[in-house]
């Protein structure tokens, strides 16, 4: 059974094995409701989101946040530390400057350049703003939403299946799938790269709608031989999502962190070469 809805700025699909229609509808309703809540809390586009509330806050303010936002911020802080700053959720300023995010008209001027400088997580789903920051969780929240949807499906009694949010995907319960990766130079071409089971995957690639802007969505200092596409396979989709940015910026130097997360990567270059990390 399968179903798809537009969420997280893309098409989110759920495929499950071995359930009847009534159970599937109920389970997928729950999974999509969870995705919708994550979308609403963590959209930089929506003035009512937690991210925009943090962008409006002043130094010293304490804000109540959704539990989901706190969970993602905690993951983002861990990846920032582990990657030596390659994973950076305080990149919204740059993304606004590149017109990839709308400029918020209600925000304080951003001061913090890292998440650790910007916030301190407090008990009971609250956060203290240490320095105002424009936080974008686009590099991890979609993966987190996929993991959350898998959790909801399992809780509702679904044994096996696949959740796919525009290519950030996770197969669970023995569901086997072949993953194809788009060729960013020609977006309707895709090549089969791996078969996976009980594993997640995410890809970061050149902007599809404007190939000229290339890696506009990646913020940081790029080394030589810049990739055009990075796909990471990891047990959780949040980790796969976050690690694509680290591999993009650090290349081979990201291998230790990858192994610590039981992750593997496929990097495609413009000259047509591909290599695995």
């Amino acid at each position, binding site marked *: *059974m*399968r*179903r*798809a*809805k*537009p*969420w997280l*700025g*893309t*098409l989110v*699909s759920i*495929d499950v094995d071995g359930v009847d229609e009534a159970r599937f*509808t109920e389970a997928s*309703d729950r999974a999509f409701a969870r995705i919708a809540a994550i979308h609403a809390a963590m959209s930089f586009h929506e003035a009512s989101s937690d991210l925009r509330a943090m962008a409006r806050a002043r130094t010293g303010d304490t804000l109540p946040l959704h539990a989901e936002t706190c969970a993602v911020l905690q993951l983002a802080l861990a990846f920032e530390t582990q990657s030596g700053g390659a994973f950076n959720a305080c990149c919204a300023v740059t993304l606004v400057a590149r017109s990839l995010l709308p400029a918020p008209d209600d925000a304080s001027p951003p001061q913090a350049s890292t998440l650790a400088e910007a916030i301190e997580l407090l008990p009971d789903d609250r956060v203290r703003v240490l320095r105002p920051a424009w936080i974008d969780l686009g590099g991890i929240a979609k993966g987190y939403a996929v993991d959350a949807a898998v959790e909801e499906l399992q809780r509702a009694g679904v044994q096996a299946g*696949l959740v*796919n949010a*525009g*290519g*950030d*995907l996770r197969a669970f319960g023995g569901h086997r*799938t*072949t*993953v*194809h*990766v*788009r*060729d*960013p130079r020609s*977006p*309707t*071409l*895709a*090549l*089969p*790269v*791996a*078969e*996976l*089971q*009980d*594993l*997640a*995957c*995410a*890809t970061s*690639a*050149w*902007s*599809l*709608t404007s190939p000229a802007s290339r890696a506009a969505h990646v913020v940081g200092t790029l080394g030589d031989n810049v990739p055009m*596409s990075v*796909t990471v*396979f990891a*047990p959780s989709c949040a980790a796969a999502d976050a690690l694509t940015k680290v591999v993009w910026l650090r290349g081979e130097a990201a291998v230790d962190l990858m192994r610590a997360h039981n992750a*593997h990567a496929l990097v*495609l270059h413009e000259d*047509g070469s*591909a290599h*695995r990390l």
Partner: protein
Amino acid sequence: MGTLRWLSGAALAAPALVQAAQYATLDEAARRSFPDATAFREQLVPASADEHRAAPWRMLVALKGEQVLGVVVADAVVGKFELIDYAVGIGHDGKLRNVEVLAYRESHGYEIKLPAWRAQFVGKDAHSALRVGEDIANVSGATLSCTHVTDGVRRIVAMVERLRTSGRL
């Protein structure tokens, strides 16, 4: 513990693949939008209901006995690389209840505008995956945006609101 098996010989000179997937029929989308409905009545909404519209909309009116619960409107949007068929469920109170993607297909562009191509989606069973080249649900890479769907949903909500307030529903 998960397993990953690399497919050897993966090269960028891979053949062209067309991603296509059928997710639901309009009837399934209608039942998911209005699980309490006892019947659905089909109705066409003239294109004049929306100034940007050239063709009539297909709409199902959800009924519970004589009571109207709401409507489900079918629409399609064409993007740069993709065509998305979707359905929007709107309650009798005018509130959006559900958006369901019915079918998705991407290509190099031109053929998705052809009626013959479009016709192949009609009446397909949701559980028999389309075999257009290959039914690939799992393409990773630069994400295709659903902006067109979001815009389409907004237009449909506004159109249904006009029908409602003018007593045509």
